[in-house]
C-alpha cells in the first residue's frame, strides 16, 4: 500500500524510455561503397577512439583495390587477426589453382566470396550489408573487412582478449561434485551447460537488451520438458524490457519478476552450471546474461533456496538431514532473536527455573532493555558482515579479530550485553550461512528486525501475528505464475520427493509438477543404468580377471 506512488512512478518512466536518444537506430542502412568514406564514418561514430584499429592494404590478386580490416583493440584475438590477414587476404596470385577464381575476381562483388572461401582461420565469417549490424559486431569484438568499391563487408568472429578463466565457484561451494563455475562470458557459460546436456532438445534463444549496452541475453530450456507457455511468457517479459543498461543479471531479475516489493527473491540465481543443468531438466528456464557469472533460473519456488547442488550427489540420508538443518537454520535466523526477546520480556514462566536464574544473573547490571541489547548486537553483527564483504582482502584478518573480540568478550565483560545475547546473535549469524540460495538468507535477515519489534511489544502474540502475515504473503507470491510455496502450498504429495526430502533415484521420479510439461522422468530405462546392469558389468570384469 505504501509503495503505490513508487510503483506508479516506475510505470511512467518505462513508457517514456521506449525511444532513447543515445541508443542505436533501428533502421536498416546499407554500407557505403567508398572505403574512405566508410572508414571516416566509423571513426566519426566512435568519436575517433584510439582503440579502433584500422589497417588498410592491397591484396595481391587485386592490387588496384584497397582493403581495410577494422577491429577493436582488446576485444579481438590479435594473433588470430594476424593469421586471418596473412592467410586469407594476403595470399599470392600464383597460389591460385582455380581458373574460375581468377575470372570471378574481375567482378568486384565476387571478391568477398574469394575471401570467405579462403577464410579458414575464422570459425564464423559471414557477409553482410547493414551498417548497424556491422557496428554492433565491431563493438562485440568481431573484425570487419571492407573492400574499396564493393558493397557490404565481411564480419569475422575473432572475439578474444582478456577473459577470466573458468574457476571454482566462490559463493556456492561444495565438497562433492563438479568444481567449475560460470564466468563473465556468455559463450563460455552456454558451452558449460551444453557440455552437460548433450541433447538436441536443449534449445536456446538470444536477444539483445539494453539500449546502450546491447547486452546479450539468452534463454535456455529443454524443448518438450519446459512448458511452451512458460517459455513464451519469459520471452515476452524479456522483450518488454526497456532500459539503457543491463550490467548484471540482477537488472533482468528486477525487471521480469512478478512482484517488485517483497522481501523474498522471486528469481533464483546461480553460478554453477550443474545447478542450471539440473533445473533445466526439471522443466525450468535459464536466463543467461553476458557479463556476469550469475545465471537466472525461472520459475522459482521457496524450497529451491534450500537445495544445494551437492544434495543430488550425496547420499539420500545425509541430504535429508542437511536439508532439515537448513530449514531449521532459516527459522533460527528469522525467529531466534525475537523469540529470545519474547521469552525474556513477556513469558518468564516459559524459561526453565535454573535457566531463568542463570539469565537473571547475567541480566544484572546490563543497562539496556533486552530489545535494545538484541538490536545493538544484531546491528553490530550486520556491520561486521558487511565490512567482511566489502573490505580489501588484506585487512580481512583485522576486522574479524577485532569484531570477534570486541563484540563477544569485551561487550560481555563491560556488562553492556549479556553472554546469552552474544550466543543468540552468533548462533543466528552462523545459521544464516547455512542456506545454499544466499538470496533467501537476506530475506530472513531483513524480516528478523520487524519480528524483534513485534516480540518486544507483544511477545509471542506479536511473533505469531507477524508469522501469519508472512505466511499469507508467501502464499500470495507467484513466480511466473507458479505458487512460491509449492509443493507445500498447494500441497503436492508426489512432489514431496524433492522438497524437504529427497527420494533415492531408484524410486520413480516426478518433475516439479507445475513447471513441467511431461511429468514422469525415465530414470530407470534409458537414464541412469539400473543396478542389475551394474552387477552384470562387474561380474564380467571378474570373469576377465
Amino acid at each position, binding site marked *: 500500500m505504501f509503495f503505490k506512488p513508487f510503483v506508479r512512478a516506475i510505470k511512467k518512466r518505462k513508457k517514456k524510455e521506449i525511444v532513447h536518444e543515445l541508443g542505436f537506430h533501428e533502421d536498416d542502412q546499407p554500407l557505403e561503397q567508398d572505403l574512405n568514406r566508410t572508414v571516416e564514418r566509423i571513426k566519426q561514430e566512435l568519436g575517433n577512439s584510439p582503440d579502433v584499429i584500422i589497417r588498410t592494404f592491397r591484396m595481391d590478386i587485386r592490387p588496384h583495390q584497397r582493403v581495410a580490416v577494422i577491429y577493436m583493440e582488446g576485444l579481438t584475438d590479435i594473433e588470430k587477426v594476424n593469421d586471418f590477414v596473412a592467410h586469407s587476404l594476403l595470399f599470392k596470385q600464383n597460389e591460385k589453382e582455380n581458373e574460375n577464381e581468377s575470372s570471378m575476381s574481375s567482378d568486384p562483388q565476387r571478391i568477398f566470396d574469394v575471401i570467405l572461401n579462403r577464410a579458414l582461420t575464422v570459425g564464423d565469417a559471414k557477409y553482410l550489408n547493414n551498417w548497424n549490424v556491422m557496428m554492433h559486431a565491431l563493438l562485440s569484438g568481431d573484425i570487419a573487412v571492407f573492400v574499396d568499391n564493393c558493397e557490404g563487408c565481411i564480419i569475422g568472429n575473432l572475439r578474444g582478449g582478456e577473459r577470466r578463466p573458468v574457476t571454482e565457484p566462490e559463493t556456492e561451494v561444495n565438497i562433492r561434485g563438479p568444481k567449475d563455475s560460470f564466468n563473465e562470458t556468455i559463450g563460455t557459460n552456454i558451452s558449460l551447460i551444453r557440455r552437460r546436456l548433450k541433447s538436441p532438445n536443449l534449445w536456446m534463444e538470444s536477444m539483445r537488451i539494453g539500449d546502450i549496452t546491447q547486452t546479450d541475453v539468452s534463454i535456455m530450456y529443454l524443448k518438450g520438458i519446459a512448458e511452451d507457455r512458460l517459455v513464451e511468457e519469459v520471452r515476452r517479459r524479456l522483450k518488454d524490457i526497456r532500459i539503457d543498461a543491463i550490467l548484471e543479471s540482477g537488472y533482468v531479475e528486477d525487471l521480469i519478476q512478478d512482484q517488485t516489493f517483497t522481501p523474498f527473491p522471486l528469481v533464483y540465481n546461480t553460478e554453477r552450471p550443474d545447478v542450471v543443468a539440473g533445473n533445466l531438466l526439471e522443466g525450468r528456464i535459464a536466463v543467461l546474461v553476458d557479463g556476469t557469472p550469475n545465471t537466472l533460473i525461472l520459475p522459482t519456488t521457496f524450497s529451491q533456496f534450500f537445495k544445494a547442488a551437492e544434495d543430488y550427489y550425496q547420499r539420500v540420508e545425509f541430504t535429508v538431514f542437511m536439508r532439515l538443518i537448513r530449514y531449521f537454520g532459516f527459522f533460527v535466523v528469522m525467529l531466534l532473536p525475537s523469540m529470545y526477546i519474547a521469552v525474556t520480556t513477556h513469558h*518468564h514462566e516459559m524459561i526453565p527455573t535454573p535457566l531463568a536464574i*542463570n539469565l537473571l*544473573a547475567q*541480566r544484572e547490571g546490563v543497562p539496556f532493555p*533486552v530489545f535494545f541489547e538484541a538490536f545493538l548486537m544484531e546491528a553490530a553483527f550486520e556491520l561486521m558482515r558487511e565490512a567482511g564483504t566489502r573490505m580489501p582482502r588484506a585487512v580481512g584478518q583485522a576486522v574479524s579479530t577485532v569484531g570477534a573480540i570486541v563484540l563477544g568478550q569485551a561487550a560481555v565483560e563491560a556488562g553492556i550485553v549479556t553472554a546469552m545475547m552474544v550466543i543468540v546473535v552468533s548462533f543466528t549469524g552462523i545459521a544464516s550461512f547455512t542456506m545454499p540460495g544466499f538470496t533467501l538468507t537476506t530475506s530472513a535477515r531483513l524480516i528478523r528486525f520487524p519480528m524483534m519489534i513485534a516480540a518486544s*511489544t507483544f511477545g509471542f502474540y506479536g511473533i505469531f501475528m507477524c508469522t501469519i502475515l508472512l505466511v499469507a504473503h508467501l502464499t500470495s507470491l507467484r513466480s511466473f505464475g507458479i505458487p512460491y510455496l509449492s509443493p507445500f502450498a498447494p500441497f503436492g504429495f508426489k512432489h514431496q520427493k524433492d522438497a524437504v526430502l529427497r527420494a533415492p533415484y531408484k524410486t520413480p521420479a516426478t518433475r516439479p509438477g507445475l513447471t513441467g510439461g511431461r511429468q514422469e522422468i525415465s530414470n530407470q530405462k534409458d537414464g541412469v543404468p539400473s543396478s542389475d546392469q551394474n552387477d552384470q558389468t562387474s561380474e564380467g570384469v571378474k570373469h576377465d580377471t
Partner: protein
Amino acid sequence: MTLKKGFLALMMVCLLPLTGCWNYREMNELAIAIAMGVDKVQGRDEYNISFQVVNARDIAGIKATGRIPVNVYSGKGKTLLEAVRKTSQKVPRRINTQHMRVFVIGEALARKGIEEVFELMERDPEPRLTTRVFIARNSDAATILKTVTAVEAIPANAILGKLKITGRVLAESYETEMDDVIRGLMIKGGGPVISGIKLVGKGEAGEKISNVEQTEPPTDLYTSGMALFKKGKLVGWVKGDKARGVSWINNKMKSTIVNLDCETKKDAISIDIIRSNSKIKSEVKGEQPLIRIHIKEIGILGEALCPVDVGKSAEIRKLEQQWNEETERNVMAAVQTAQKLKTDVLGFGAAVERANPKAWKKMEKEWDRIFATCRVEVKVESTIRRTGMVSKPYLYEEKK
C-alpha cells in the same frame, strides 16, 4: 479492492488489543520468588506471607559472589493479596511468582484451616498450580524459608529435591501439588494429604551462610511424614509405616523397602518395590459400604541378612506371602488412623460414589461418620521378580 484491504487492515488492528494482559517486564526488574510461605499472625486475624527471593547474581554465572543465595521478605495483611503488596515496602523489585516451586504453610495456620490460602493461588495468573505444597512441622513457614541448605544453594530446590527423592524411594511422603490440595479440599468428609517439612537443629543458626560451611549443617530441613487434613484443618500426622500405607492406598507408591522376617532373625530381608498399583473398589450393602483395596506389587529381593535359598520357588512364595501380610498391615494401620481421625483422605468416598451413586447421595452428608466405621478389605498380590546379582550369597554358603 480498497475496501477489502481496508477491512483486512481493520481486522489486523482489532487483533492488537486481544493480547490480554500485556506484561512487558525485563528480567532484571523482577525478584524471582522461588518459594512462598504463609503463616497466621499470632492473636490477630491476619496472614503473614514470606517470599524466598533468589539472589541470582550471587549464585549463577561467572561473576557469582557466593554470598547468601536467597533473601526472605515478609508482609502482613488481612488477605493474602494485601500481604503480598505489603512486601513491596521491603523488596526493591517486583515479586514474580511464575517460578515458584515450593509453597509452605505453617503448622499453626494448618491447624486453623487452609481453605482461604489457595483462593489467590488459583485466581492469580502468575503462580503455577503445579507448585509443591509443604506443611512446616512444628514451626512457621517463614522459619523454614529462612534456612540455608547445603548441596542445593537455593533452599526451595533443596526441600523440593528431598521430597521428590523421598517420594520415589521411600514413599513416606509424596509430592502434593497446589492443584491436588484444592481438589482435596473439596472431598466430602475428607481432605488433602500434604507432606511435612521439619526444621532440625537451632532455627536461628540456619539463617546464616555459616550454617552450610560445616560438613554437617547444624540446622537443616528434613521431610517428615504427612499431614492429614479434614475440611481444610490439619487433624493429624502420619509417618513411617502408616505414611507408607497412605501412599499405597492413594496409589502414590513408587518404591520403598519392606522388611521381612526370616526363621532366625527379625526384619532381616529387605524387599525393594519396583512397581505397585492399587485400586479401590466399593460395594454398598444397606447402610454400610465395604471397601476393597486391591494392591498389585512387583519387587526385588534387595538384601538378605539370613540364609535364603532363592533357587527354590517355595522359598520365594513364602517371602511373597510374608510381604503380602506386611503390606496389608501397613495399609490397615493407615486406614485405622484415618478412621480414628474421621477424615477420608484415602478416597473411599469417591470409590463409593463410583460404585453406587444413589447410595452415595444418601451417605454424602454423614460420610465422616460412616467412613469411620466402614469395613475395609485388603488384598495384596506380590511378586518377587529378581533376587539381585547373586545366586549363592556368601552368607548362605557360610551357614551351610
